[in-house]
């Protein structure tokens, strides 16, 4: 009486269908899409302040744009930072590729927007999601990891001269609309 068994009547036709008209890759894409849809739903139902993300208009849900508002009491306070998310086909087993679209002056971000963050690289785990990545990034803004900087000058300034640091942050910042 264990209900966990798959019901053959239900599953059989579907299995056949997918075998007929699609490759295994499409199956992957389907599950990725499903997962991303669920993540989006979660973001919408329980939004975190200062964070938001939404799929791009290309319609396949595999690329998103996210927006982080700079946390208070950091040099980034009040700034709007845009990021791009590109999800691989085997998401969530591989991390998404995340880039800052907004030019940002930060020790762990290089000038083309690449981010050095362990959970986006080797520490990635399938339990992370868009929201947790965005939260990590948000906290990274206030607490840069100066041990492995991509922008050495920024790392140095962060330690030595917060004033100058903030000036450079604001100097570098552009709203994405202006950039484009």
């Amino acid at each position: 009486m264990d209900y966990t068994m798959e019901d053959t009547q239900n599953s059989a036709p579907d299995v056949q269908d997918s075998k007929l008209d699609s490759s295994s890759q499409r199956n992957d894409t389907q599950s990725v899409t499903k997962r991303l849809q669920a993540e989006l739903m979660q973001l919408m139902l329980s939004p975190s302040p200062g964070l938001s993300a939404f799929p791009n208009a290309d319609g396949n849900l595999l690329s998103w744009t996210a927006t982080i508002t700079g946390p208070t009491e950091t040099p980034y306070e009040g700034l709007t930072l845009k990021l791009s998310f590109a999800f691989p086909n085997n998401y969530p087993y591989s991390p998404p590729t995340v880039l800052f679209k907004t030019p940002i002056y930060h020790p762990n971000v290089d000038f083309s927007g690449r981010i050095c963050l362990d959970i986006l690289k080797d520490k990635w785990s399938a339990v992370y999601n868009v929201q947790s990545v965005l939260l990590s990034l948000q906290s990274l803004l206030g607490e840069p990891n100066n041990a492995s900087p991509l922008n050495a000058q920024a790392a140095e300034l962060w330690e030595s001269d917060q004033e100058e640091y903030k000036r450079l942050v604001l100097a570098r910042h552009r709203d994405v609309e202006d950039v484009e």
Partner: protein
Amino acid sequence: MLSTSPIAVGRSRILSSVFSRASGDISSPAAWALGLESLGQSSRPVDPHSHRPSNRPSDTSTIDDSLLDQEKWDNAWNIVTAFLSLPDPGFEAIIASGGTNEAEFLKKWGCHDPTPDGIQEAVAYLVAPLSRHGWLRPDKGTPNILTWYEFEMRRHFLKNFRDGLLKLLSYSEEDHQLQKIVHCLQLARHIYVSPLGNHIFPVLSNSEQKAALAKLQRGFHMMVSYVLPWLEISAMMYREITEDTMVILGLDALNEENKYYDSDDGSMDLDLQYTVSYRRWKKEPSAEGRKQLMEEPETGRAAEARNRLLTLFNGLQLVGLGGDKAQKIFATVMNAMLTEFVRAAYSGHWKTPSLAVQHLNYWIENVFAQLVVQVLAIINAPESDESDERSTDHLDVELSDLKKWQEIGVARLGELRTSELFSIIVEWPASSGAIEELRHFTLHPAARYYLTHTFINILNNRLLHPGASTSEILQLYISIIRAFNLLDPRGVLLDRIARPIRRYLRDRDDTVKVIVSGLLADPVDDEQQGRSSGDVLVELSTELTKTHQRALHSNTGELDWDDMHWTPDPVDAAPDYRKPKNSDVIGSVISLFESKETFVKEMQNMLADRLLQNRGDFDQEMSVLELLKLRFGDTVLQACEVMLRDIFDSKRVDAIIRHDHGLSGKRATPRRPTTPGKAPQPSKDVPELHAKILSHFFWPEIQGHEFKVPGDISKLQQRYADGFESLKQSRKLTWLNGLGQATVELDLEDRVFVDEVTTWQATVIYAFQSSSSEEVTKSITQLSEELNMNPPIVRSACLFWVSKRILTEVERDTFRVLEVLPTDEGDHAGGAGMDETGGASTETANEAAAAADAAAAAAAKESAEAAAMEKMNLHWQFIVGMLTNQGAMPLQQIVMMLKIAVPGGFPFSNEELREFLAGMVAKGKLEIVSGGSYKIVQ
């Protein structure tokens, strides 16, 4: 009678002319012929009756014959041909009469003049050389009296019979026309054969006689088939054979009986000694009796028909219309009869136990085969006696044929049942006999395929369309599951049939609802109300209890080696076929949905509704839940379990709190509203408050109106909440005022009203309370503000009270308490200051009740709209996310993205969204930028 005299006259003229010449002028034609002979032309006398162009008697045979022989030959020839030539006129009448007075005619025909002298010798003379030379060889060119006779016969037939026969044929609609034709042909045959037998055969040897007869017969048959177009004859033959076989096989009686039963199905005693009725057969208790029933002597009608048919076949055989062709037609007829019989005898007889197959086999063996044997004996009769020895050990119908027919019969029965299957399923379980019969049929993969294929088509046409309600479909699906489990215990057929149904059911929105409400329905209740409740599938709950008991036994499934009912997979099962574990009714129904969540969610909603009712016990819900847990597992139904426990716990908690805080009133009115419980009583003692405490996390979203409860009640609520919080330290009580029941007691001037109503209705009437005896008048707007309640709900509540004749609507949206009932219809004008609206006759009360319903519906609609709005709020989150991240977007693109991004799709139209966004623009949350795009206001 009229016809005899012209015949007689005609005949005497013919005879005198022919025979006088034959006897008197014997020399002259011979001399004339001699003369001709000398001229080197044909020596054959020109016979006025003969059309033969090239019968020159002496061309070759005169090589060694003398002239004298020739003359003698010619003489003899003349005598014989003149004698044997057939008189022409006089046949139309006999044909027209269809050969009825044939005997008389034959008598006349036979009694013509005594054989003239010398005929015998002349025949002998003519025949002798033929037999010497082997006269049967046609290429010899010898003048042959037999050949001549054949030509004569042909000429005569064409001239005299052809038109008449064709005429008969053209009246093909009439009964027994074929019989007439056959009669005429037989007559003709008789006419042609008898002179031969009388005059020529005596001089021939035995074997020669046979050969000559056979030759003549062949000629005759050829002629007949030439004259009568086979197409028409065959159609006619088909019809006549059908008619008779219908009677012989008992089909007409069967049809009549059916008609009888159709007209009035009371008990009856049809006066049929002999019947093949399946009804009778089934009624007969013993096998012996059944056998006798079938072997009883047939009725006079049937016997008569049988005689007629056999005679007909005899005749057909004789005149050359029998043989293979007739056999083909006969076979076609019998084929049709078999189908017809199966239809007439068994359609609609679905009761168990089924004896139909047995009955059919008996019928085929004893009735059907009997006729076939009789007919085939005639048709296959050897044309000549030589094959006698062969025919004795050759059987027309062998046992294997019989077996084959029985198989065909069963197949036909299967076909019938397949076509009836839908109705059979509808009638289930009264129709289980039919399913038993189908088991005999579904032995071959082709038959099984036919069954499923046909049935799916029927289902698509008759069931799986918007006209059928979901509970009907489910009901039928349940019957299908039961029926097919009987038909094919391994479930292969069911698997095929169920797919389209399941697919269709999954598409229906209310399927889950129907299933869950069916599961939760109370079977006992239903039996009391009769089975007509329709919408609720009580069957499911009955089944749930039942299968549980069964499931306890057969848990081991495939590995149960003691299972005596085990059957192997049928032939057409796929190699990897595996009987679905949940193939019983409940299993199939609850596995309709891919995820259990859909089901559990609906279950929660339904359970919530039921648990919030003011009832003493929830045993039914408990047992259903326990049974479902066996199937789904504990974890899935955890929420439901918590819900149930909440209810039981709150009973206990309620008692404790009330005891501890002295909330128990003096009056023992049972009142147990949901979380908020209150009993607004305009006077006297403190109302009693009972609460149901729900664990918010485990209960589904509950829609309830929010409003301000009367002060007394909210004070009570406060005390109750305090009591609860001291009892359960970390938990907090939130009151849902919109749910629950209240018992109100309204003390009016002339009456006291006590009833249990909803909390919001109670609240509204409480607002009308006043200590003075003055009648309180309030408007909807007033009430709505005072109670913080939605106006439609207020209106609904007021109208409810109007229907109870507590309030009256003095003017639109303004109500007043009806302290004193108007005396009656008669003098309502003089009543307690009633105006027209307050006429308060029964009719107005009814109207008010209807209005209250309408208002309640409006209120429900409003709350539905609120829910829709809530949904829209979710979409608003999406829109905000979209516009924040993707920048400004035009409406079209927003809709498109929502359709992609929102799980389950975006249910609103462009217009609705435009309206909604316009609202947001008005609220200053959005702005419209260049090109009509919407942009988030930062």
